[in-house]
Structure formats: structure tokens, C-alpha cells
């Protein structure tokens, strides 16, 4: 399962900041980002996790998702075009285990995670 996301722009981050309630200025205010030594703002990690969540709920009824966990391995820069991927690793005791990744066009993996789904994925 894959989901290719559109380019992350400043508008994407402004909308996500407002909608999520995460107003950390590092994601929306260039002046603050520069004051912390960054060249520019960068995407909220949770935006990537929300995109991967979309991939899950597009393929599985949400009430069957038992758990969903990720580790953020790299910052997602502005203008990135990430691709979310989910792969079944095993089906055991009525549960389907998925490995999840978010990868940028240059091959950088920004997020790795797992999800556990009740039952099997629909054929």
C-alpha cells in the first residue's frame, strides 16, 4: 500500500498548525526557525503521521486499528514530496502487523512505524 503526497508548502504547514492546534512557531515562522539556527521552517512530524494514518484508514475500517506507533528519524523539509508505504509483515493470532515508512523523493526515510490491525486486510 502506498500513498504519494503532494508537495509540502508553507500553506500546508499553516493549515496543519491551525487544524491540529500545534502552534509551535518552528513550523510556521521563518524568523523563529532562523533564530534557532535552522535555514527554514520544517514540517510537523505529526503531519507525516497523519498522512500515514490516511493510508491506513483508506485500506482498513478504522475501528479495526488496534495500535499505531512511529519513530521520527529525520526532519521533513519544506517542499518535500513524501510517499507513505505500509507493508504486511505477519498475520498472527487474528492480527495483521504492518511496517510503515515515510520516504522523501531523495530516499530519506523520515518516519518508521508499525500498526496492528484486527483481522486480515480485505483481499
Amino acid at each position: 500500500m502506498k500513498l504519494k503526497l503532494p508537495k509540502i508548502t508553507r500553506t500546508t504547514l499553516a493549515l496543519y498548525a491551525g487544524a491540529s492546534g500545534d502552534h509551535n512557531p518552528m513550523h510556521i515562522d521563518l524568523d523563529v526557525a532562523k533564530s534557532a539556527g535552522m535555514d527554514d521552517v520544517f514540517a510537523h512530524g505529526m503531519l507525516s503521521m497523519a498522512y500515514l494514518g490516511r493510508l491506513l484508514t483508506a485500506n482498513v475500517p478504522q475501528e479495526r486499528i488496534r495500535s499505531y506507533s512511529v519513530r521520527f528519524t529525520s526532519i521533513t523539509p519544506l517542499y518535500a514530496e513524501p510517499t507513505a508505504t505500509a507493508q504486511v509483515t505477519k498475520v498472527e493470532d487474528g492480527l495483521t502487523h504492518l511496517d510503515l515508512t515515510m520516504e522523501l523523493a531523495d530516499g530519506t526515510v523520515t518516519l518508521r512505524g508499525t500498526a496492528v490491525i484486527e483481522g486480515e486486510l480485505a483481499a
Partner: protein
Amino acid sequence: MPIDPQVIGTELPEFTVDVERGRLRFFAKAIGESNPVCADVDAAKAAGHRDLPVPPTFFFCLEMERPADHPSLVELLSIDIRHVLHGEQGFTYHAPVHAGDRLTFRTKITDVYSKKGGALEFVVRSTEVIRGGELVAELHNSLVVRNPEAAK
């Protein structure tokens, strides 16, 4: 200043938040979710939901809805928000949650540790989400605090 490990076990003041349809619609728009189940109550009901469903990561957003007089974890520990990175995030789901539900959030600091000689500090917290006495979801969060001074 290093984070005092004494804060392990500290519970943040619990708070209650109402899940609102408008917030869920705005969130769906912001993450590019076009499934009508996430924005249209009739579509949600046709798909077997009581109301608009809370998407998998939105509990993290609701957790930030604490009242203005409740300090956030970052404020409580006097952390410079510019130096915070999100390390890990996990959710465990016990029951579907929908718009119209009233949720109580109970958060506890479960671990504090440092790496690279204090250049990176980690604050780990767990949160229980309760609806009418029922545990409906749990959150697991690890924040990374960069300490540029300690790295020198």
C-alpha cells in the same frame, strides 16, 4: 539546565475536552483527507459511525487542548520550544471515538534521560483518554530536547 529526573512520575493536571465536528472537518482538510466519512455526518452514519470519527492521530491534537491555565509539558519543564523535536508517538485504540464525545486526558511523565553527554534529552509521557469512565485510547510520546550548549 538539564531536566531533573525527579519529574518522573509527575502527573499533569487532567482536563476534559469536547470533540467538535468543525475541528474534525478542518483537520481532514489540512491533511488532504477527502473521504466524506471524515466531513459529512450523513456519510459517516451511512458507513456505520455514530458521528464523524476521530481520525487515528487526532488524539494528539486533542491532548493539546488543555485549558489556558494548565501548563503544557514544555512549559512545566521550562524547555525552549525551539529546541524540541518529536521523537516517537504511539497510539493504542480501545474503542471508536466520535464528534460529540467528551474526553478526559490524564498524562504522566514516565521517563527522562539524556544521550550524547546531555546534548540530547528525552522526555517520555503516557496519556490515558477516558470517556465516561471507559479507557478509549492511550498515547505514548517521546520528545527530544536539543541542548546546543551541552553539545559544545
